[in-house]
């Protein structure tokens, strides 16, 4: 009898452990797809290696493409029904995928891990929230700050930008930093920026002037309203009256980034440039975005990860997302230096603040205080293309501001009407 009980107990315990183990420790192979540069792949390989060490039963295959190929490849895989388990997402495009039902609702997992998002900057979570819950988690974020070439400021005897700068200060400093040669050619520009996407400067300036880019329910484009117009007028005047800002043809000749090429004294950028700017010969630093009549404004945008709805190993996939938000993984991202970690404890630690490039990294974190979220809605890509493409002829010097702006708003509103 005793003997039998013992056997039963052994069998029972074996069964129980086997059952308990299936969820977490069953072997799973998952694929993770993302866009990125070679340097990023290197760091992600390290993060994955750490993850493997912590989760020996899960194998992650990393697949990295450049930005443009990434989206084409992703859409092809999704439409073929063979999506990667985990894939990277740019917040503004998130709803284009979420609304089409290809993403896994992570809310049940989040409810089971109530502490997971506690240390994460709340501004970076906003974009992923939907009435049905969160279908994605951020991994890192970008705010925009004003970068300036210290050597050029020193040479021209102009004081460095401060947190109290206004857009008028920016314009006048840019004017004094511009050098025009005897043949009428500009040899040094005071300011430069790409005006296609809203993220670099135009959304920030519009917000600072008291305008907005789109209304709350994403049915009306607001970039032509009087306050927004003041921002466009400023860019236009800097480019064509002051000649302190190269038009897009000229900036193309300097590889698309005259600041990096050392011919422009200022630009507004996100932290993503830091690794690329590490090699520059000049001294530079960053300051917060200038103030407008309605105060200071910058934009916050995050990149994150989502899980495919058709994933065969959603549990393992979520484990990976969870790991990306862990301190060791966020530390690796901080050291990579492309973006700001979303985990507050890591962002405010030396791993991020004491990176090898000697600029004031804290500016990017402090900017969250006055950051607006880059809009997230279905049809974002086509809407932003309607504006970016349409305005481009102005920045090439081929079209007038006001009539073009009117056409652009009409085209952008047409996109919004079509997407409803």
């Amino acid at each position, binding site marked *: 009898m005793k003997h039998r009980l013992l056997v039963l107990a052994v069998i029972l315990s074996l069964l129980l452990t086997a059952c308990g183990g299936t969820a977490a420790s069953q072997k799973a192979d998952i694929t993770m797809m993302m866009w990125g540069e070679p340097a990023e792949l290197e760091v992600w390989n390290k993060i994955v290696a750490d993850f493997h060490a912590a989760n020996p039963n899960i194998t992650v295959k990393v697949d990295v493409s450049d930005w443009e190929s990434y989206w084409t490849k992703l*859409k092809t895989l*999704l439409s073929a029904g063979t999506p990667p388990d985990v894939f990277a997402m740019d917040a503004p495009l998130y709803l284009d995928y979420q609304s089409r039902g290809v993403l896994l609702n992570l809310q049940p997992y989040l409810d089971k891990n109530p502490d997971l998002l506690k240390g994460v900057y709340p501004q970076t979570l906003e974009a992923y929230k939907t009435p049905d819950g969160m279908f994605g988690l951020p991994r890192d974020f970008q705010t925009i700050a004003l970068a300036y070439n210290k050597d050029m400021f020193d040479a021209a005897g102009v004081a460095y930008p401060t947190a109290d700068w206004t857009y008028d200060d920016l314009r006048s400093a840019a004017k004094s930093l511009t050098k025009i040669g005897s043949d009428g050619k500009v040899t040094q520009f005071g300011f430069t920026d790409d005006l296609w996407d809203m993220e670099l400067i135009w959304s920030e300036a519009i917000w600072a002037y008291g305008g907005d880019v789109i209304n709350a329910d994403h049915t009306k484009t607001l970039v032509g309203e009087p306050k927004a117009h003041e921002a466009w007028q400023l860019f236009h005047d800097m480019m064509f009256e002051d000649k302190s800002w190269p038009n897009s043809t000229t900036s*193309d*000749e300097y590889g698309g980034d005259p600041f990096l090429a050392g011919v422009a004294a200022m630009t507004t950028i996100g932290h993503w440039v830091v690794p690329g700017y590490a090699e520059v010969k000049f001294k530079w630093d960053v300051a917060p975005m200038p103030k407008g009549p309605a105060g200071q404004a910058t934009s916050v945008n995050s990149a994150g990860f989502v899980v495919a709805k058709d994933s065969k190993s959603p549990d393992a996939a979520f484990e990976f997302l969870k790991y990306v938000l862990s301190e060791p993984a966020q530390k690796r991202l901080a050291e990579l230096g492309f973006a700001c970690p979303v985990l507050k404890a890591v962002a405010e630690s030396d791993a991020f603040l004491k990176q090898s490039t000697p600029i004031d990294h804290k500016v990017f974190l402090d900017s969250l205080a006055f950051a607006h979220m880059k809009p997230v809605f279905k049809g974002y890509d086509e809407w932003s293309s309607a504006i*970016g493409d349409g305005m*481009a002829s102005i920045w*090439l010097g081929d079209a007038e501001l006001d009539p073009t702006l009117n056409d652009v708003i009409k085209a952008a509103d047409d996109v919004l009407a079509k997407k409803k």
Partner: protein
Amino acid sequence: MDYGLKPLGREKFWLWALLMPTFIGLIFGALGSVAATVLLSFAKWDLLTPPAWAGTVNYANLFNDEKYLISLTNTVKFTAMYVPGVVIVSLFVAVLMNRKVRGVGLFRTAYFLPAVTSAVATALVWKMIYGNDTGILNFILERLGVQPVCWLCTGNAMVSVVIVNIWGAIGEGMIIFLAGLTAIPREYYEAAEMDGANGFHQFFRITVPLITPSIFFQTLISTINAFQAYDYIYMLTRRDQGDSSVPVVVFSIYRNAWNFFNYGGASAQAIELTVIVAALMAFYFWLERRYVVYE
């Protein structure tokens, strides 16, 4: 057209056996995707959710899509400049290369090189040539005392891009025309010379009529290429997110399919492009029956 050897008996089996792989590729690859494109052009499809039948909505939308209409106009303008350009320039080059000059092989190779070089690499070189403040062409112009030109600005970009595309196509055109030229018997020219015809007359009265089949073929190929032109244009005029300052139809198709979640609309554009090219081809073949001389 009944010449050459005919396969017999067992040879026939092997003929089909060896052709099979190509046929399978054609049927499933080319014809399959053509059929799929036709079907999808009648559907609303964003790649992520299942396609839904949409009738002719995609085609109706084409006429309201301003960006598409602009791109179609651009393609037509491009074709109107590119096709005559390629035919004339490559015929001219072929006539030059048809002479018995020392080192003609070297020249022929030089003209053919763009055809076998990566378009992306050569387009980058052209970008340096066309640059505004730093470009080679403007540097030369300024030395000659001429006002520099903004080659890739909106007003000029189309012509600049056509020039590069013609330059890239000379090599292939030259080969076609050289083949045609070498087939013309020498005696015709000798006879003409005896009758006192000068070079100009010889070219227009003997060469051109006798190579009409090559001209026909080259016009056909160039037209098809013109409607598909993308690589040089993309490299020289691209802007953010797949836009271009000379957006031809291929840009519109690509962006609708891959950026704007509008695969059905992109398919309709592709089909419309095919229909236009097919109509042009029909016109060409009509011309062929009237004007092309086969010996």
